[in-house]
């Protein structure tokens, strides 16, 4: 009994080690959120783990970061004044096979800096040797750094676009959403679409995934479909409202576009009715021509 239990415990422990990845470059932590005052300084340490079978030579760099319209990070040199405020203590570092090393970065915020967030990438990049007639590949791992300069913070996100079709007979109503963060700090987003009748009475609502935090100055694009299923049966004019809650202050914004909905049965009924009316009119005209008034 004891042996069985011992074996079981050993099995559980060994399974933790089996999950561990091998043969790679790893950084930790992968993200820093630093709130700092103008004129202050702070050290950051990134731990680099080399699981390769040979040593790696690495460059340490600080890059400016932006978000694309889907919320994915892009890194550039020379786009962020904050790139000047963060420096690696050394530009190059060598990590031996199966070893760990710390890379240090020093943040020094100048005085007289206005409050708000700045976005950077702390890059650990393999130094590549160029080979002729070949495509050389090297890896760069980037830890995200959000630098929040203390002071007055403004959360201000607005609609750039909220549109869709004006007319449809489909049960899926496509929409296009664009949001812009005009504030000076990143904001978390939650959203939902609400479908209302022409009087403004809500029929149903549907959550919309808006992705990760929207950085200051960034635009978020989202295209999707409202699936009405069997919730709307009758033709008519409907309101499609986008409701968004953003930021730590949980501000709410909303926008509406109108859509004429004609289910397929109503479109068919319309065409049949039109056909009957047209046929009657033609008959009436023919009858009048034949027999006069």
């Amino acid at each position, binding site marked *: 009994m004891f042996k069985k239990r011992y074996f079981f415990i050993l099995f559980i422990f060994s399974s933790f080690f089996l999950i561990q*990845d091998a*043969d*790679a*470059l*790893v*950084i*930790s*932590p*992968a*993200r*820093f*959120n*630093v709130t700092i005052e103008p004129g202050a300084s702070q050290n*950051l*340490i990134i*731990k680099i*783990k080399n699981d390769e079978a040979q040593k790696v030579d690495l460059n340490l760099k600080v890059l400016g*970061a932006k*978000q*694309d319209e*889907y*919320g*994915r*990070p*892009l*890194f*550039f040199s020379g786009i962020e004044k904050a790139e000047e405020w963060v420096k690696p203590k050394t530009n190059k570092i060598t990590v031996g096979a199966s070893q760990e090393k*710390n890379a240090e970065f020093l943040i020094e915020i100048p005085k007289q800096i206005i409050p708000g967030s700045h*976005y950077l*990438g702390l*890059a650990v*990049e393999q130094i*590549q040797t*160029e*080979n*002729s*007639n*070949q*495509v*050389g*590949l*090297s*890896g*760069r*791992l*980037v*830890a*995200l750094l*959000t630098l929040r300069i203390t002071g007055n913070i403004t959360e201000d996100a607005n609609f750039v676009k909220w549109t869709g079709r004006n007319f449809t007979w489909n049960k899926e109503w496509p929409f296009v959403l664009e949001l812009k963060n005009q504030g000076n700090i*990143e904001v978390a987003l939650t959203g939902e679409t609400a479908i209302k009748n022409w009087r403004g009475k809500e029929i149903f609502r549907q959550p919309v995934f808006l*992705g*990760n*935090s929207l*950085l200051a100055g960034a635009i978020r694009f989202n295209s999707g479909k409202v699936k009405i299923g069997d919730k709307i049966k009758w033709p008519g004019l409907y309101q499609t409202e986008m409701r968004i809650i953003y930021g*730590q*202050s*949980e501000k709410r914004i909303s926008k509406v576009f109108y859509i004429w909905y004609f289910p397929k049965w109503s479109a068919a009924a319309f065409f049949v009715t039109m056909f009957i009316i047209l046929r009657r009119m033609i008959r009436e005209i023919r009858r009048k021509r034949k027999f006069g008034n």
Partner: protein
Amino acid sequence: MKVLKPIYFLLALFLSFYPLCSRGEMSAGDYYIYADSVNTGGVISGGDYGVRGTFNESPIGFTTSTSYETRGGYQPMELGMKVSASSLSLGTLSATAIKTASADAIVWSDAGTGYTLSIGGVSGTSIANVSDGIITIGSEEYGLSVSGVDRAFTNDRAIAERLILASSSEPVTNSKTTLTFKASISDTSVGGSYSQAIVLTVSGNF
């Protein structure tokens, strides 16, 4: 009465430790603190205000001594990448076939917001980049395609800085993206030797 004093003391000591250190929510008349942590934080709300976040988080990063290491902070802790090949050769290009070479980029990230893999830098020389979304036999075109569950596109793309190759909005374990480099030449292509250095960048998402 003297006999009861130690009991009161023990009771007070017990009550002072018991619920608050383990609860995820504290509340009073006009506010509540939800999911509070040891050094405060979580969501605080009242009549006219609401704050969500972590305050005074310290220490962040690594604190070490000879006998211990603390990995502090609420940030995602690890990001890793393995590239299966450091160089690829497309061989001698041909006007009658598309030459290909592949490498895998394997990524893991415990960031709750997922990761993004992109081209961080391109240097060197190449033949004309593909511009119509597909590399065709007999046309001078060079580019890459990606495969894997997190791939960012399905056609052939020109190799350019900040081209996003793969992304996920969730934590991933060994997410593999295969990069297939492709090239073709035409009968009128000028002969030469080409080489390129490409930096693959991986990061978490903000």
